[in-house]
């Protein structure tokens, strides 16, 4: 096959700009070959280079705390948890593939993030995922939702990692561009951490795992454009997942790391061999001589260009210690996996790619990579016009509903609030027998066998808040994720982020992104939870509109003593219920406004980071001293929803509640307010004095709300609900909507 002539036009077709093409020619001192053009185009795509985000990302706190490896240094961040153990964790998006091929798009998203974890030598111990779709009355949304959930389920279940939590939201803004963010957590001995580096001349470079096919070519470039009618034609850019091979790859990879046979290892995700060879070489200030003739292929007549750009899944690049090739091969043979030496590390920092005895590419790896020669841009930023109008909301124009009970039931059964059991019962949440608290709670809790410790994890982001106020909305996302892990008894450790935004070339979008990063940085510095890494996903737009800006926060916390694990549900009747924190009747951007009045407007709830931190300190103190039996944060839906959840989260053993909720001006405003930094706790009568003593010495206001009872949820003697009825509303809402044919 004759290769096309390389010129500016071809470069533009590859998604490069004229300026970028000129830089490439200048750096090489010649016109790139076709293969080289392909390599540059994927390596300099938004997806691999972070060219429009990295400048701002670098303003985030990326070290300190218990971080062992800072953001961007390796495939995932690493946090020390003591006992010679560390936690590796990261979140990543697979939005665009999932928009056109939901099942494989989501499945390979899970596969990719798992490889990021075990390539560091860490065994994956849990997955979470953060999903956004349109509303369920739309048939295509139901198709996407069903496919994405099944894709995540089939991959994680077969691989054998428990999917323990996450979040799902439904809103029109995500109709054509769903968000599929997958997070994985792994555990590793601190003296067995593997690095993604290539060094030491003559070390063999091996490709291991699946064969290479034509799937996923230009996947990274596809992820760097807006969704349009043409996207359907990109379906072949979506890779196909094979969780069984990934499971074998995991076991083999951990064996070669354990036996200390390797110099470095990196998984192949976006940009396949191009990315792994160049990044590993650049990190080691070395080069590689690669012979593509040896790469195991699954299709005939593949070109060098195709082999370099293939995004076939379940592959890794391994730089083996000299003399250990044989042992590495033995291990991969045991697991029936490919393992071939495709080249050697060189001291000369050049990536030389040969195929059929022709030098197809000869590029300094440094020029290709993020942090090296890949471009870095600051874009124009401009405050969007819509923000001026949309924050105005006169409460007097919101009619007070006639029937509070009816509104409450409507909110409780809104798919954004209702139980996601339809989703999480399709996930194996228990395999590996570490899941102390599974899905459906504020945070998932995973014990660490052989220690007294456990890890709490959550993902959070209210895109509606961020849309209405990018900076404060993002601060709330961080604060809420911290609050969620605190409610489970954990100290917040660090975060990973998945930044889902629109097109950064639009000044309004770039401004929004910038503000979100500012808010995230401020909150993370305040809570001492550095950013360990993550992922930026731009171009989440369809011809109609951009998605709500959605910077998802994946938070991990540490529970030193597993006896301190605390859960949200009320435990026994006859206990006392208290509110920690204060209500300000804030309904801007609330679920109530959206559900009852179809309004997305107003000032979002204010967030004061010191108030939030005071609350965390109080809760952790109450948990440590074993004074409270439950803790549940108040978020979307407000206090009435949160109380109902405390009653029915344990479906097997529902506990009623009889409460008096203070009303400042109007019942609807008080009951459905989403004021931040609030938590509901319950305790036995005998701990009343101890509780009040500690709480009164703290900076957090507290209010006695009432007592737990039998089968009724009763509010202000006026509104009464049978728990059986609430259980039906809460647990059947999504499955009922999914069963419409």
């Amino acid at each position, binding site marked *: 096959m004759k290769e096309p002539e390389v010129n500016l036009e071809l470069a533009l077709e590859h998604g490069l700009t004229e300026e970028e093409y000129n830089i490439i020619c200048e750096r090489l001192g010649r016109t790139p070959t076709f293969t080289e053009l392909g390599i540059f185009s994927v390596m300099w795509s938004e997806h691999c280079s972070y060219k429009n985000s990295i400048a701002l990302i670098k303003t985030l706190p990326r070290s300190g705390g218990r971080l062992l490896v800072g953001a961007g240094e390796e495939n995932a961040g690493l946090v020390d948890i003591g006992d010679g153990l560390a936690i590796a964790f990261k979140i990543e998006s697979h939005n665009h593939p999932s928009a056109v091929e939901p099942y494989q798009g989501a499945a390979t998203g899970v596969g990719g993030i798992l490889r990021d974890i075990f390539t560091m030598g860490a065994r994956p111990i849990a997955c979470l995922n953060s999903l956004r779709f349109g509303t369920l009355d739309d048939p295509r949304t139901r198709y996407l939702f069903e496919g994405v959930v*099944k894709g995540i*389920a*089939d991959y994680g*279940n*077969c*691989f*054998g990692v428990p999917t323990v939590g996450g979040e799902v939201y439904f809103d029109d803004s995500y109709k054509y561009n769903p968000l599929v963010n997958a997070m994985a957590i792994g555990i590793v001995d601190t003296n067995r951490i593997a690095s993604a580096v290539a060094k030491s001349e003559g070390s063999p470079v091996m490709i291991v795992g699946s064969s290479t096919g034509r799937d996923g070519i230009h996947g990274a470039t596809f992820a760097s454009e807006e969704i349009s009618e043409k996207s359907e034609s990109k379906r072949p850019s979506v890779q196909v997942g*094979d*969780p*069984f*091979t990934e*499971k*074998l790859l995991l076991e083999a990879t951990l064996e070669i790391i354990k036996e200390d046979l390797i110099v470095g290892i990196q998984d192949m995700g976006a940009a396949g061999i191009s990315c792994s060879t160049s990044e590993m070489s650049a990190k080691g200030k070395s080069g590689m001589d690669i012979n593509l003739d040896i790469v195991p292929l699954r299709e005939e007549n593949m070109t060098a260009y195709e082999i370099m750009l293939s995004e076939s899944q379940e592959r890794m690049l391994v730089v083996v210690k000299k003399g250990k090739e044989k042992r590495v091969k033995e291990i991969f043979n*045991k*697991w*029936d996996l490919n393992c071939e030496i495709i080249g050697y590390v060189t001291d000369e920092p050049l990536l030389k790619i040969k195929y059929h005895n022709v030098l197809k590419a000869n590029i300094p790896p440094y020029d290709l990579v993020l942090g090296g020669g890949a471009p870095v841009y600051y874009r124009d930023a401009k405050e969007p016009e819509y923000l001026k109008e949309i924050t105005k909301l006169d409460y007097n124009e919101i009619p007070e509903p006639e029937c509070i009970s009816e509104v409450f039931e409507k909110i409780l059964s809104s798919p954004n609030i209702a139980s996601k059991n339809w989703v*999480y*019962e*399709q*996930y*194996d*949440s*228990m*395999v*590996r*027998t570490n*899941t*102390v608290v599974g899905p459906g709670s504020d945070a998932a809790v995973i*014990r660490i*066998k052989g220690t007294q410790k456990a890890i709490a994890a959550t993902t959070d982001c209210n895109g509606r808040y961020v849309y209405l106020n990018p900076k404060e909305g993002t601060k709330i996302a961080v604060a809420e994720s911290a609050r969620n892990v605190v409610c489970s008894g954990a100290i917040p450790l660090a975060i990973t982020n998945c930044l889902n935004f629109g097109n950064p070339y639009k000044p309004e979008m770039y401004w929004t992104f910038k503000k979100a990063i500012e808010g995230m940085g401020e909150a993370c510095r305040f809570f001492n939870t550095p950013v360990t890494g993550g992922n930026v996903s731009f171009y989440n737009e369809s011809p109609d509109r951009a998605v709500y800006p959605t910077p998802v926060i994946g938070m991990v916390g540490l529970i030193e003593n*597993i006896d301190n694990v605390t859960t949200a549900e009320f435990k026994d009747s006859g206990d006392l219920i208290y509110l920690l924190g204060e209500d300000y009747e804030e309904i801007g951007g609330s679920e109530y406004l959206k559900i009852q009045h179809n309004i997305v407007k107003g000032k979002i709830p204010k967030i004061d980071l010191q108030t939030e931190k005071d609350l965390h300190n109080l809760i952790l103190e109450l948990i440590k001293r074993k004074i409270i039996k439950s803790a549940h944060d108040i978020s979307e839906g407000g206090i009435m929803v949160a109380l109902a959840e405390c009653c029915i989260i344990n479906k*097997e053993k529902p506990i009623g509640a009889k409460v008096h909720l203070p009303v400042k001006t109007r019942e609807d405003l008080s009951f459905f307010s989403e004021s931040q930094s609030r938590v509901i706790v319950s305790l036995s009568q005998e701990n009343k004095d101890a509780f009040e003593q500690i709480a009164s010495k703290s900076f957090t206001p507290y209010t006695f709300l009432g007592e737990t009872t039998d089968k009724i949820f009763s509010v202000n003697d006026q509104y009464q609900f049978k728990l059986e009825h609430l259980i039906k509303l809460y647990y059947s809402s999504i499955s009922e909507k999914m069963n419409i044919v």
Partner: protein
Amino acid sequence: MKIKFGIVVFPGANCDHDAYYATKKVLGYDAEFLWHKEPDLKGSNAILLPGGFSYGDYLRTGAIARFSPIMDEVIKFANSGGIVIGICNGFQILLETGLLPGIMQKNINLKFICKDVYLRVENKNTLFTKLVDKNVIKIPIAHGEGNYYADEKTLSELEKNNQVVFRYSDSKGDVTPESNPNGSLNNIAGIINKEGNVLGMMPHPERACDTALSRTDGALIFKSIAESIYK
């Protein structure tokens, strides 16, 4: 004598570590992994075929694992009266070997299901249940194909010989359509062979052995097996 559980590791098994942890670390028996390519049971007193997705379950569940080199030894062991327990994928593999009758179909809702279920213990007079001291136990399921099917004749044989050991039920032990998670005939969750030394069950007892996970009923099954070997 310390009882030794031999846990077969098929490629794609993912509950092998859980079974090992439950039998060895939690319950204090001996346990050893048996690699599927090596036809050697290494002196195990009981063989455990763990859950997971052997060979990805890309063909019919258990259909390829059944031909692993170790399976000839497992079948010989079972035919000479040795205790064999197959859990989830292990149960599916046992069906493929013919050590147990019947087949598995996809769950009736066509979805994977992971949740706690209640099981009515139908036969407490087996090698696997002799120490179960209650009528209803709580053990989680996690499978996509647990919808047990057998022809009428086989089914009536199973019932007549008391080979149905566990049935999906509600918390009170009532066997109802609502308590059947996957469409299994007669709410069947676990069966033994006619001789009584081979058990297949879809629920995961190894996930229910540990107070830290708030589930302990599964331990009764492993304790029963150990007790049966002692006697």
